[in-house]
């Protein structure tokens, strides 16, 4: 289903500074959309988790930030893509505490809980695409 995209911006995810920049953009856009402070914080945190995954596990990639307006509701969608090694077992990767990178293993599962909609596509050897949306 096509969703009217009010505005969109592509950001590289190649360094820690890029992750900080993505957090700032997401914050600014959710403020513009009129999100509550808690909802702003949730989606900024989710963005931070996935951006870090893209950087650390995907070897870097790109984030697409989109401001959506569908019927009466408005939201923010984030699409993170990388051409990294991919995730072999997505169900396992979504489980809290599962980690291959020495982290806490909360990134994917946590980001899913903080989003209204969450999807993940991955092919071993080709890369990963994570899409998360938070509606106002």
């Amino acid at each position: 289903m096509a969703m009217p995209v009010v505005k969109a911006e592509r950001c590289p995810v190649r360094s820690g500074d890029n992750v900080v920049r993505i957090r700032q953009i997401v914050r600014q856009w959710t403020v513009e959309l009129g999100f509550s402070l808690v909802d702003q914080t949730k989606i900024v945190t989710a963005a931070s988790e996935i951006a870090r995954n893209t950087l650390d596990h995907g070897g870097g990639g790109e984030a697409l930030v989109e401001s959506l307006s569908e019927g009466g509701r408005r939201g923010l969608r984030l699409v993170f893509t990388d051409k990294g090694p991919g995730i072999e077992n997505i169900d396992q990767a979504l489980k809290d505490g599962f980690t291959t990178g020495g982290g806490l293993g909360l990134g994917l599962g946590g980001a899913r809980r903080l989003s209204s909609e969450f999807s993940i596509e991955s092919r071993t050897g080709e890369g990963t695409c994570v899409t998360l949306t938070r509606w106002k």
Partner: protein
Amino acid sequence: MERIPILKMGEFLLVTIQVDMHDRLALTLQDDLTEMIVKNRTHGVLIDISALEVVDSFIGRMLGNIASMSRVLDAATVVVGMQPAVAITLVELGLSLPGVRTALNVEKGMELLRGSLTATNGHARRQG
């Protein structure tokens, strides 16, 4: 190089995190703080995060690491000033900061540290 300042406040160390932390800055803070704990023979560290609008699992892990490292160096850590929206998000993220003591503000955090020092008799030991 950019650094997070560590202030000596009486018998304690105070770290006020005001910037959006990237990984390198967080790691530098861990190094600097452990060095300061040993150098100043401090038994208490306050980390003020009231200016932080986001605490993700990376920052959460760093706070946990700092608390563990401090504990091994005989210093207690109290994280103070967490914003309510950050607390709500952290719990939903699945991070409850185990092993990290918290207080509502710096003042309450200092009370907590003083209390724990007295309880373990660390205060008397260090002055004696």
